[in-house]
């Protein structure tokens, strides 16, 4: 998984996608007054069984056959799965109950099963509860472990399907259920291209993790999952406000998540995103939770500041806050932050960003000599990068020195494009550069803990 995802981040570097999870009014849910028996080969309980088996069979991070389980499913099946999984969890907590409810959009409805469906779900709940039956731990703790096992494995399962869709291994565009559907606005080269609708695997994974006990907000796996997925999506150029909004409710004080949330808002402020959104033709009921450039920059600043308050040595947050402040016209503070970051940065990529942004701030503040020095340092870090070269050239051009302006840019611009690398090109995805490794580590630690 790690290598495949890393490669794909590079491959898909240029495509930006905005996602919005659609919370359509729940309809045709399995209720006492509106049961809608699915007309297909498998019954509802059999679909639940199929899902549980696929989740257990799936090896986290692998492209195995179990990920294809939904290929034969219809949109309704997916919606019933959410309801029936809820029933299963209820039965795991209390095997004696026979009245079941499903809550959605603030409304609770009773769920009624046929005899055969109920018998199978009871059996599945018993098996799931006994998975850790021989543990010496107490009953409550055992129940919690078994419940969380299903929920976390389920989240991993849907995460891997979603990743396969992003990297193109799995085809998108299947009929999406009305509740768990995701609209994606494709923006290749800054142009809004129609909406794609897909099964909302991210949303489904989030809904599973919400049910983790004793509380999702106190669970280390859930915390790491939110941060890693936020980074991973951005690494792929997917801008997903729903994930960040949901995550901030759970982890409002987590520096890592605050940083990723801030990066998202920084990216949403980009003119290309703003312009694509303004020009996109989307149905009235589909809303992308994106504000104006000014508001997005303000939110990015706010979140970067919070991240730094929690973790003052978060170097990357300081660099990005410096840039955002510069964009907001707060050049003096931006300059101070970037100067400190440039001095502290060890990783070449972060050094490069710090020097480049600091150079721009010095240039804005009228210190062209120091700007020249800083752009020069950035250029030394990545000799083939065009951005600092163009910046150096422009300084000469603004001074009226045409000869130097030409010389500064020609050495790099004459090189073949495919032989060059400029970290500026991947700035809005760089926050996800370690996400694939983080996801692998998360899976490994989950499996270790799950085996105990």
């Amino acid at each position, binding site marked *: 998984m790690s290598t495949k995802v890393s490669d794909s981040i590079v491959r898909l570097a240029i495509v930006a996608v905005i996602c919005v999870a659609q919370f359509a009014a729940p309809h045709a849910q399995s209720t006492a007054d509106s049961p809608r028996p699915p007309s297909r080969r498998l019954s509802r309980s059999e679909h639940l069984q199929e899902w549980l088996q696929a989740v257990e069979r799936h090896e986290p991070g692998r492209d195995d056959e179990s990920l294809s389980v939904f290929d034969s499913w219809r949109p309704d099946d997916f919606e019933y799965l959410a309801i029936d999984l809820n029933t299963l969890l209820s039965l795991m907590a209390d095997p004696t109950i026979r009245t079941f409810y499903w809550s959605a959009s603030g409304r609770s409805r009773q769920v009624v099963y046929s005899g055969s469906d109920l018998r199978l779900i009871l059996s599945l709940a018993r098996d799931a509860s006994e998975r850790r039956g021989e543990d010496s731990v107490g009953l409550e703790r055992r129940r919690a472990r078994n419940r969380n096992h299903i929920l976390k494995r389920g989240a991993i399962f849907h995460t891997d399907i979603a990743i396969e869709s992003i990297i193109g291994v799995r085809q998108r565009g299947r009929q999406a259920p009305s509740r768990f559907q995701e609209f994606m606005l494709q923006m290749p080269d800054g142009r809004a291209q129609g909406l794609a609708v897909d099964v909302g695997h991210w949303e489904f994974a989030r809904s599973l993790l919400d049910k983790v006990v004793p509380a999702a907000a106190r669970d280390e796996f859930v915390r790491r999952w939110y941060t890693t997925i936020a980074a991973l999506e951005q690494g792929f150029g997917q801008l997903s406000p729903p994930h960040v909004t949901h995550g901030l409710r759970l982890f409002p004080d987590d520096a890592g998540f605050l940083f990723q949330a801030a990066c998202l808002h920084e990216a949403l402020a980009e003119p290309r995103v703003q312009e694509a959104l303004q020009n996109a033709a989307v149905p009235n009921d589909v809303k992308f939770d994106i504000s104006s450039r000014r508001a997005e920059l303000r939110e990015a600043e706010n979140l970067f500041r919070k991240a730094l308050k929690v973790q003052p040595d978060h170097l990357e947050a300081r660099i990005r806050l410096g840039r955002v402040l510069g964009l907001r016209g707060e050049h003096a503070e931006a300059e101070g932050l970037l100067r400190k970051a440039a001095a502290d940065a060890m990783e070449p990529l972060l050094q490069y960003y710090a020097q*480049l942004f600091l150079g721009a701030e010095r240039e804005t503040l009228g210190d062209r000599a120091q700007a020249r020095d800083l752009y020069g340092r950035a250029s030394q870090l990545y000799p083939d990068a065009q951005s600092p070269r*163009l910046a150096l050239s422009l300084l000469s*051009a603004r001074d009226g020195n*045409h000869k130097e302006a*030409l010389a500064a840019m020609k050495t790099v611009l004459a090189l073949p494009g495919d032989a060059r690398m400029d970290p500026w090109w991947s700035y809005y995805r760089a926050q996800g550069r370690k996400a694939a490794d983080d996801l692998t580590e998360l899976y490994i630690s989950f499996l270790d803990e799950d085996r105990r």
Partner: protein
Amino acid sequence: MKGRAISALVVVSAFSSHAQTPTFSSRLEAVRVDVLVTEDGRPVRGLTPADFDIRDQGVPQTVDLVSFEQIPLNVVLALDVSDSVSGDRLDHLRVAGRTVLGRLAKTDQAGLVSFNHVVEVRAELTDNVAHVQAALAAVEPAGETALVDGSYAAMVLAQPAAANARRGLVIVFTDGADTISWLTPDRVLDASRRTDAVVYGVIVRSRNKASFLHELSDRTGGGMVEIESTKDLADRFVGILDEFRQRYLVSYTPRGVSAGGWHRLDVRIKGRRVAVKARAGYLSGQ
């Protein structure tokens, strides 16, 4: 000439007849301005220095030299080869590039800058048009659009060297808005105040705004062509070249104005109600 490369060329030799190529050389104080004069959309020919009323910071100047058509060109094509320029659009672009290059005179030079997220000088200024055409044939669309970076690079490439009696023309083609440039529009527009090169923009009309290119062409005294489709792109490119050849290169030595800073220019034709297009001004000094 150091530090004054953008606007400082002056006549050293005497005014030449129309049949000859005038000779320019450099001297610090001189300013030259590319001027298009049209009447009912048609270029006005036969104007002499006495016909031009040039005001530098509002101060009337004496025009030293006016030339028309004879000065060789530096033509730089700056072409958007981002992801969206594919299929027919790319074919049309290649044909347009080839066509306009084929219209150049032997004394002209051409260069090619392509840009997606990568800005690439595919051909430096050369009188070997076949070389530029071959470079054009090799472009393949991919990636995002660094319109600001690419326009800047082309502008620098087209700028005539100090002692080079040439006129710089940049034709920028794009079908979208900038998505990834490092350089900011305001800084490039600022740098354009020190260039003699004239920028024409050709943009496929879309919902995306092209305010930067409008502004750049306006400031350099060029023009914007907005098209619905690239089908007639070759005609558009040739039209720009033809129009550019119809421009006067007017030179004067500033008098009665301060040496440094921004100089606003007003160019008119005495006694005639004609349309005049020229750059808005020039920046002098450090």
